[in-house]
């Protein structure tokens, strides 16, 4: 009797786990629908569409994968979704017009760009307190925290800088001038290099983190596409250190870059206006959000082929995946 109850509870636990994990899924924010699409990564089907706050853009997972943070830009808040129930359980005081953010390795400090106010707001995700607000350049956009937790780096689109924020003191300690309209920053896993895209400049700068100097500037060229339409936005580095993938916006291509030699190896045709990307948990696929065509392209990372595209909501913006 006792034993069977124990088995039952085990079973229930397993069922609950299966129910909550929903296998492997991707969450995609749809900027003009005020929804998230939930994409099953085994069946490649959209299995659920969840209503969230207004103009959802940047999204990020908590370190344990149990919560999803959503920048609801026009609701002026960061929403917290419990992924077990897919319900919004809290709204964080994000400052006005939050666009992108990054979570510190401590799983508590969330660094949020407030696009309209030229501020970065730091919020404690447990106490929901605002820990600091840091003045940065005009139209702060991209955010990244270094793997060792020392730096939070913000890009400002009209000031054209990377702003280096010391996460201990929350002081802005240095700025790196890059090309026009920097959009996204991505640290290499060892924290030694930082990749920064410049949308209007058409370049990606690779920055040496210890010296905060640009050591390499990448340019892109696609036959038949006007150079001005090649506008780098999202950057993702493959976990094996081989590749950097750069989403080229209205050029509708993702550049594949050798992450060591910086040579551009290939350009992969995806949907229209490709912005952000995420790897599947097993690292085998890269998903891209294509705003104008309203879909997600799936790139096979092994053979660098675009395998499929899946319709989601209007203006898909951000994407994350969870096992």
């Amino acid at each position, binding site marked *: 009797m006792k034993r069977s109850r124990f088995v039952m509870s085990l079973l229930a636990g397993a069922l609950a786990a299966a129910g909550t994990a929903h296998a492997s899924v991707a969450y995609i924010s749809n900027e003009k629908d005020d929804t998230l699409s939930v994409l099953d990564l085994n069946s490649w089907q959209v299995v659920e569409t969840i209503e969230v706050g207004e103009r959802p853009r940047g999204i990020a997972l908590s370190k344990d994968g149990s919560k999803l943070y959503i920048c609801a830009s026009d609701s002026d808040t960061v929403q917290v979704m419990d992924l077990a129930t897919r319900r919004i359980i809290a709204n964080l005081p994000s400052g006005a017009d939050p666009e992108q953010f990054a979570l510190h390795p401590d799983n508590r400090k969330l660094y949020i760009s407030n696009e309209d106010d030229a501020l970065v707001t730091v919020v404690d995700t447990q106490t929901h307190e605002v820990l600091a607000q840091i003045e940065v350049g005009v139209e702060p956009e991209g955010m990244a925290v270094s793997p060792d937790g020392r730096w939070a780096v913000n890009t400002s*689109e009209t000031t054209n800088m990377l702003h280096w924020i010391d996460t201990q003191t929350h002081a802005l300690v240095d700025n790196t001038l890059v090309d026009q309209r920097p959009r996204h920053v991505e640290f290499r896993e060892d924290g030694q290099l930082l990749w920064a895209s410049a*949308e*209007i*400049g058409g370049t990606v700068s690779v920055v040496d983190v210890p010296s905060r100097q640009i050591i390499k500037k990448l340019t892109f060229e696609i036959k038949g596409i*006007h150079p001005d339409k090649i506008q780098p936005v999202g950057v993702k580095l493959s976990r094996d250190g081989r590749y950097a993938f750069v989403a080229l916006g209205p050029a509708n291509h993702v550049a594949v870059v050798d992450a060591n030699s910086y040579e551009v190896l290939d350009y992969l045709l995806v949907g229209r206006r490709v912005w952000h990307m995420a790897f599947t948990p097993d690292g085998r696929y890269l998903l891209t959000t294509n705003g104008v065509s309203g879909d997600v392209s799936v790139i096979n990372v092994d053979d660098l082929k675009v395998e499929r595209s899946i319709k989601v909501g209007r203006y898909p913006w951000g994407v994350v995946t969870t096992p």
Partner: protein
Amino acid sequence: MLRNRLLAAGIACLLPFSPAARSALNVDVAYVGQIIDRGPVLSNIIPEPDDAGRQGAQLAIADSNTTGRFLKHHYELHTIEGEDARQLVADSRALYDRGLRLFVLNTDAATLAALREALPDDSLLINAGSRADALRTDQCIDQLLHTIPSRAMLADALAQWLIYRRWNRWLLVRGNTADDQAFADAIRRAAKRFGGRIVAEKAWSFDTDLRRTAQKELPPFTAGAEYDVVVVADERGDFGEYLPYNTGLPRPVVGTQGLMPVGWHKMIEAWGAAQLHSRFEAQAQRWMNEKDYASWAGVRTLAEAVTRTGSNDPARLRDYILSDQFELAAFKGRKLNFRHWSGQLRQPIALVHPRALVSQSPQDGFLHPHTDLDTLGFDEPESGCRVVE
């Protein structure tokens, strides 16, 4: 002697410091705004705000100071506004004598010429007010840059789209001011360039109050020839607002009213423009218009050059602005730079109706050996101006 020393000291505090990136730098920019009385108009419901232009310059100064904080660059705007051109010129010269060298000018073409006369050659002038084609072709003003699009750029942007839609037959209706005539000239030139056909041309000189009688007067006025669109040239908005829905044939109205080619408009919201609008509206409590944008772009051009060179020396800034390195991110979806012949800022032109963006030119398929942006306006072989020799 004493006076000389004073002058030297005055210059020292405003003029170039060493170009070292991190030494503190003050950048003083003059904004000269001419308030132009356009006379009484029939459609007077939404007048152009008197501070059109100045608000754009102010916003650009604020934007630049946010950036400048990190580089120890401080920007200050010195504003002169008024109706009297002679007074504007005298006041501008007084600013020059106080050491100012960077000028953003929102005036008509004649005042621009007078300002160039009055301000010595070591001052850098940006035209953010006059669309006159002559300034880009034969009445070249020495070392003048333009951030506001010329009439030819607007007309070409519209013409490309009309050709793309295969609406090739145009009825041209123009008002009777010199500006209307100039816009009509640009439309005729665009028709010739891109293959439009002006099937008839009519001048509107009636003085009836169209607010009451448009329905009776305009259909017969625009009847007669077969056409695909009515192209209206009425820059001050005297009668053109009444043309849509009152044409003899059921056809669209394009030009200065209806579907309009514009350098900037509230309906441009992509490429981050929504952010520029919200900053502007928070500051000015109104929508940002073309004049605001041109002045904003003028100040931002100077500031971008200051940021990249670490200098406020006008000659150095000018060289940088006209170099291949210069690029301006200006919420139009691609980087902008200046034409070496006319000093004109290359830029896409939006086609809007009052409540939506319809398209953006250059249209696909209009090719150019250098950049498709140069399919808009006067190209190098068509212009006698040479800002860069």
